[in-house]
């Protein structure tokens, strides 16, 4: 299967961006933009068309929750589905992200099947 959408992957760990990208490629996605934190991700959103955001939570400069709030609080970007992929799996974190408008939430470590299932829910 091939999906012609552009996914913005935001994570301060290059290794994690690489793993997420590799998993997405195995599912059938091929267009990616990468950013190391929320500040850089916001700049990339201003410049390029993005169809889906996959972001870590704990990052320097602007963390994933603040980035999520910035996206969902912006009329230009709030329609973009946002999946949080994070090691922060405590109930309070999940609730905070839901309240901020996250479309789905994945706790690391994750399998390809988990990511595929969450993508199907978000993209329909």
């Amino acid at each position, binding site marked *: 299967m091939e999906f012609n959408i552009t996914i913005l992957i935001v994570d301060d760990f290059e*290794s*994690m961006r690489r793993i997420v990208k590799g998993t997405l490629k195995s599912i059938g996605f091929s267009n990616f933009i990468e950013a190391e934190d929320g500040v850089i991700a916001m700049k990339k959103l201003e410049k390029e068309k993005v169809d889906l955001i996959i972001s870590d939570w704990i990052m320097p400069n602007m963390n994933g929750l603040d980035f999520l709030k910035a996206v969902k609080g912006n009329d230009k970007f709030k329609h973009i589905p946002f999946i949080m992929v994070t090691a922060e*799996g405590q109930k309070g974190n999940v609730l905070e992200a839901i309240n901020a408008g996250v479309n789905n939430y994945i706790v690391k470590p994750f399998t390809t099947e988990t990511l595929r299932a969450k993508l199907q829910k978000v993209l329909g």
Partner: protein
Amino acid sequence: MDVRYINPFIESTVHVLKTMSSITARVGKPYLKKNEVATGDVSGIIGLIGDVKGSISVSFKEECILSIVSNMFGETMTVLNDEVKDAAGEISNMISGQARQKLEIIGRNLKASIPIVIMGKDHTISHITKDKIIAIPFMTDNGEFTIEVSFEE
């Protein structure tokens, strides 16, 4: 130190390595660590604060981390470089995250620092607590690694 804080890290370590790299980690016998010299060549260290204060480290022998990261990336890694260092930090981060979820169940809420990763023979690991340091060795088919856990109430 409350021994209930140890098992979540053991279980999480096994789970993270299995899920991310399909590597089976076999747990050895825990022991009291009495010095700061790392048992491995690459160590990820994370500080934990909240209901209790503590820190954990995950210290991998070279052969072990190279095989884990090779499986994670789907590409053979042969030298300790920045990519391996970065991945060691992310593995530590995932172990910490999983363990904190389990600690939440026993009523301990903790937040974690961003991991620090140190590479090199005989480097040292400084925990933020003054309490005992429990070391748990693990064996894989491609070498050993050790996690260290230290908490004070």
